[in-house]
């Protein structure tokens, strides 16, 4: 008997037990859909998380320097000076751009009303590296080091609008004890896992003048843009050496975007794998459903098996008959399940604000696994059918 014959006969048999076939297909469908949807969602979620990171490029390095042992005396020696930071950039050729920055904690108020925000001391290099765009005005720069100027983030500007609808440029913002003139407003800045400060809620003051805001502020952090494909470990080692030469008490804590991305990717893979296993369990249950249906089918069709054997069907032809049926059920369930899984992923992506894109792996894997499920769980019933004695099965009703 050839393959097309097997398929024709399988179709006749499957369509004559419609409800049962439907339920078996449903089991596989749900299982496959779960596998496809969970893997796809896992990949999309990972992709979304990475996308934020990659927005600034991957050749970034963040460095913080702290004293090894906390000392009670507050002095310049606790950190690096702006000049020392810039020397780093000059001495390491891989560094394209370097932006030291600092944070301070003081109340911010506008026209007597308290604002929620952070204070960052920075210069134009920071705006370049973390992609801050201005809606109005200009960013604070090196030459304005000791001016009482500040740039406000988009979110802070929104807060100020509640107090006054006037153009914020030129207005005075009270930061700690002093008043600062607003010289720029940023556009909305997309948050980024790499740069931890929230620039949207920030009042950025000139880096050189951070001490005017808060006496104990230290310039102990920097973001660094490297040349593409720089040897990151080597650069980190150079930075450590140079910092040690400035001040042997300081320790460098580096964070490399590439390393973070790599670890996020591997976490994402584990997460996706876990989801795939969960989906796989439901596919397993679907497979058991197919096996059950096929076993019932075999015991119900003993007579047919006997007749077929009497007219000359070999054992493997009987086996093929039932195997083709279970594979057909599974493949149909697999195809529908892949479609359903993708639709489901699309819906989840829509509501989670992910970029929906179809990865090739989940549909192909889902389909192949469901077909394999059909063969695996169809094999035992088919084998049982093939091994029936022709005489015994002919006698059964």
């Amino acid at each position: 008997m050839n393959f097309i014959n097997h398929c024709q006969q399988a179709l006749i048999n499957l369509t004559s037990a419609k409800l049962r076939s439907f339920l078996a297909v449903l089991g596989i469908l749900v299982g496959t859909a779960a596998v496809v949807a969970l893997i796809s969602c896992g990949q999309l979620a990972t992709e979304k998380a990475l996308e934020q990171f990659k927005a600034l490029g991957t050749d970034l390095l963040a460095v913080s320097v702290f004293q090894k042992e906390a000392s009670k005396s507050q002095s310049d020696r606790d950190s690096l000076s702006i000049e020392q930071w810039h020397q780093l950039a000059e001495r390491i050729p891989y560094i394209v751009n370097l932006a030291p920055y600092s944070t301070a904690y003081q109340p911010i108020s506008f026209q007597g009303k308290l604002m929620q925000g952070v204070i960052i001391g920075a210069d134009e290099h920071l705006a370049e590296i973390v992609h801050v765009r201005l809606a109005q005005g200009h960013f604070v720069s090196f030459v304005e080091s000791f001016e009482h100027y500040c740039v406000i983030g988009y979110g802070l500007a929104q807060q100020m609008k509640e107090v006054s609808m006037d153009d914020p440029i030129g207005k005075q913002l009270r930061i700690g004890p002093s008043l600062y003139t607003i010289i720029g407003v940023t556009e909305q800045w997309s948050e980024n896992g790499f740069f931890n400060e929230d620039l949207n809620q920030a009042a950025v003051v000139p880096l050189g003048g951070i001490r005017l805001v808060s006496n104990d502020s230290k310039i102990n952090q920097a973001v660094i843009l490297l040349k593409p494909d720089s040897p990151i470990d080597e650069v980190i080692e150079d930075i450590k050496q140079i910092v040690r030469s400035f001040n042997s008490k300081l320790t460098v804590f580096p964070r490399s975007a590439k390393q973070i991305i790599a670890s996020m990717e591997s976490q994402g893979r584990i997460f996706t794998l876990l989801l795939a296993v969960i989906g796989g369990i439901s596919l397993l249950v679907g497979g058991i459903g197919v096996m059950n249906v096929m076993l019932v089918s075999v015991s119900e069709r003993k007579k047919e098996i006997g007749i077929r054997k009497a007219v000359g069907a070999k054992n493997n032809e009987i086996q093929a008959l039932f195997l083709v049926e279970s594979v057909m059920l599974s493949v149909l369930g697999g195809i529908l399940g892949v479609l359903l899984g993708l639709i489901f992923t699309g819906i989840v992506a829509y509501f989670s604000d992910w970029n929906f894109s179809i990865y090739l792996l989940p549909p192909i894997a889902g389909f192949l696994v469901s077909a394999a499920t059909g063969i695996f769980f169809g094999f035992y019933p088919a084998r049982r059918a093939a091994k029936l004695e022709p005489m015994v099965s002919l006698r059964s009703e």
Partner: protein
Amino acid sequence: MTEALIRITDLIKSYHLEGISTTVLKKVSLNVHRGDLLAIVGASGSGKSTLMNIIGLLDKADSGTYLLNNKNVASLTDDDSATLRNQHIGFVFQQFNLLPRFTAMQNVALPLTYRSGSTEVIKEKVLAALDKVGMKKYARHRPTQLSGGQQQRVAIARALVTEPQVILADEPTGALDSKTGTEVMNLFLALHAEGRTIIMVTHDEHIAEQCKKNITLVDGLVVAESG
């Protein structure tokens, strides 16, 4: 006399069920020649169906020899037996045993689908076989749409379609009323007249009388041979 198609010598067969062993065939011997119309007659429990199953290669004897076309079948594998059944033996059962979900045509075609051959050739042979038993116009009917006599004719067409060397009929008229039974019997007689070899199991004396040769089994032993 022509050479024997089937040569059975000292066949013994027992069944073991729940610790009780029953010997169904006790040293049965018989020969069947090409063109024979043989009736195996006996009451129920006489072993005639078991003998039929062994002849039809659906079951194996415990001891004794069975030569089909001078070939000893004792050492055949399941698949070899299946091939021989397909090539040389046509079955007709008391309960017709047609596949309920398949049309008359598909049922008759079944043995041919286990051989190689193009769909066109199969269709031609199937229609010829159906025509021979007068069922060509019911080709697309399913068994449930046919009367008992019609179903048995389809079953006979299925047995004929492979051009077997021997047709084995197990109580072929047993499930039919006397009128259709006679019609089916006449069909067998016509096939015999064409030179086909037919072995028929029956407990019906009237049917047995119409066969050229009779073998009577009582309790697993051949007690009478005629013709």
